[in-house]
């Protein structure tokens, strides 16, 4: 039987200070043009925590707004405030920067993170109120150090500063004097990814209604690499985050594939469970500091606030078939192969049409497609257009070409089978997976019968190949009951038949 999606989590962390100090658009500008007007404008264009919480796409990401509801909100969204917006949603939360820095310190096992005493004292209580933060995590939060000590690390030892409200409140030190792979910059990037993955794991376990001890394997699918000069991408973010999250029975490994990695990882997890290797596997990922404010220059130029001010994270719990939850159908996998080529028709053909052909299905037979779910509020002002819509147009066009859809129905196809994007532009985070949580609920409620998750990856960015990559899978309603019926006689029925035959035999003996 297929493995199932038992639950999912989606978390955001509002990190405005990291936009300025760690986003590559800003750090590059500081090197190339340190006196630039843009850098001066950034602090004024950052949103407050309350503004980030009341932002419609963020509320959609954490599960307080259905994507269909978001689609009804007048575009653009950056100037609309959602009334009644909440920090917490059914999938996760939007954690404020100050609490997150404490979680980062608690996630650090090598004492490279230092926070100022007063800062820790001011915010520890708030972190303790978070429903998923455990006593064990709180116990790991140190009392803190004097600001002078932090200043010394930043000014004299190349530590990365940690800022809140523009003020220095801590630092991430280098974990090695010479090794660039353990530099303060890399340690900062990796610890932010790890800590946001921890938060996603904690919510995923809660949302799936399982025990932490049930998790046997974790797959991390972020885009960072951890290791030292002898094994630059050695890993293992998955086990490192599982340790902090208290998943004591789990081991794990990292899957990488640029933005396609989450979809690769879910397929791998589903296969591990279906094969019987592990009963419960969690796919997880934290966020990416480098991408904060990635399109900031365009946003500022057009008078928008800097919308890329949150780290994103997600986790999906995959278990053995429970007879209820939606299944991942491993018989319908799409894959862009080495020989597929790069023509858009070939790409969409390999990811969408080929797996459907194998199952005897047509493109309109899938109720919802989830390709790249980037929030168009972020991408349109930056000139990248509406990415989900561009993908839906290509899928619809292929359906028309294959004679499965009338040309006149194309515009309607993008609405009926598509979704409006809501995910932050955190690379791997918006790629296919943001819809899994919503799809699980919509399938359980009977609103849709199936959905295709499509992950795409820009492998060429690593300069190892010019190839693009992508994989896809289909989620559909649970078929355990149906499978049982189709498999013929059940165990109970066999027992019943034997009992009946025995009775008849006994009756025959008595009659004689």
């Amino acid at each position: 039987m297929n493995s199932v999606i038992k639950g999912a989590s989606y978390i955001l962390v509002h990190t405005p200070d990291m936009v300025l100090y760690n986003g590559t658009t800003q750090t590059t500008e500081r090197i190339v043009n340190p006196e630039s007007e843009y850098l001066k404008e950034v602090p004024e264009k950052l949103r407050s925590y309350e503004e980030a919480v009341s932002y419609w796409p963020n509320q959609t990401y954490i599960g307080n707004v259905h994507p269909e509801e978001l689609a009804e909100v007048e575009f653009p969204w950056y100037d609309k405030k959602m009334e009644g917006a909440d920090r917490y949603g059914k999938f996760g939360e939007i954690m404020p920067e100050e609490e997150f820095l404490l979680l980062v310190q608690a996630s650090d096992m090598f004492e490279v993170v230092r926070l100022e005493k007063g800062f820790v004292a001011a915010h520890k209580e708030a972190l303790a109120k978070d429903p998923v933060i455990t006593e064990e995590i709180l116990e790991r939060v140190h009392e803190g150090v004097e600001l002078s000590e932090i200043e010394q690390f930043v000014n004299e030892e190349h530590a990365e500063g940690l800022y809140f409200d523009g003020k220095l409140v801590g630092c991430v030190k280098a974990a090695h004097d010479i090794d660039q792979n353990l530099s303060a910059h890399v340690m900062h990037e990796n610890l932010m990814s790890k800590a946001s993955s921890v938060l996603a794991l904690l919510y995923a376990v809660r949302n799936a209604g399982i025990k932490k001890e049930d998790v046997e394997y974790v797959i991390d699918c972020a885009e960072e690499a951890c290791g030292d000069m002898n094994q630059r991408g050695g890993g293992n973010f998955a086990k490192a985050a599982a340790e902090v999250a208290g998943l004591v029975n789990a081991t794990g490994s990292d899957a990488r594939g640029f933005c396609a990695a989450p979809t690769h990882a879910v397929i791998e997890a589903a296969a591990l469970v279906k094969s019987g290797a592990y009963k419960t596997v969690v796919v997880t990922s934290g966020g990416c500091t480098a991408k904060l404010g990635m399109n900031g220059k365009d946003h500022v130029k057009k008078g928008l606030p800097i919308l890329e001010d949150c780290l994103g994270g997600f986790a999906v719990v995959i278990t053995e078939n429970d007879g209820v939850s939606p299944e991942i159908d491993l018989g319908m996998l799409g894959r862009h192969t080495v020989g597929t080529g790069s023509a858009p028709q070939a790409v969409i053909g390999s990811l969408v049409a080929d797996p459907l052909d194998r199952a005897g299905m047509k493109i309109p037979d899938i109720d919802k497609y989830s390709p790249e779910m980037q929030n168009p509020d972020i991408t349109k002002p930056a000139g990248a257009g509406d990415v989900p819509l561009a993908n839906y147009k290509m899928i619809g066009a292929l359906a028309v070409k294959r004679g499965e859809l009338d040309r006149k129905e194309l515009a309607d196809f993008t609405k009926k089978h598509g979704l409006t994007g809501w995910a932050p532009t955190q690379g791997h985070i918006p790629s296919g997976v943001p819809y899994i949580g919503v799809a699980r609920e919509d399938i359980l409620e009977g609103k849709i019968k199936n959905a295709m998750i499509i992950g795409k990856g820009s492998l060429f960015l690593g300069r190892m190949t010019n190839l693009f990559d992508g994989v896809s899978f289909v989620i559909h309603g649970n078929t355990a009951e149906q499978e049982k019926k189709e498999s013929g006689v059940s165990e109970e029925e066999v027992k019943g038949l034997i009992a009946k035959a025995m009775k008849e035999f006994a009756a025959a003996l008595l009659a004689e």
Partner: protein
Amino acid sequence: MAILENKKVIVIGDRDGIPGPAIAECVKTAGGEVVFASTECFV
């Protein structure tokens, strides 16, 4: 198509649009010489 004939062409494709190699193939058939082609990811 003549606009590309005997011209040197720099191709920048889009991951979610038309990728570089696909544009490069079109340029070649139109008589252009591709001096650089890449695909970029804008998200």
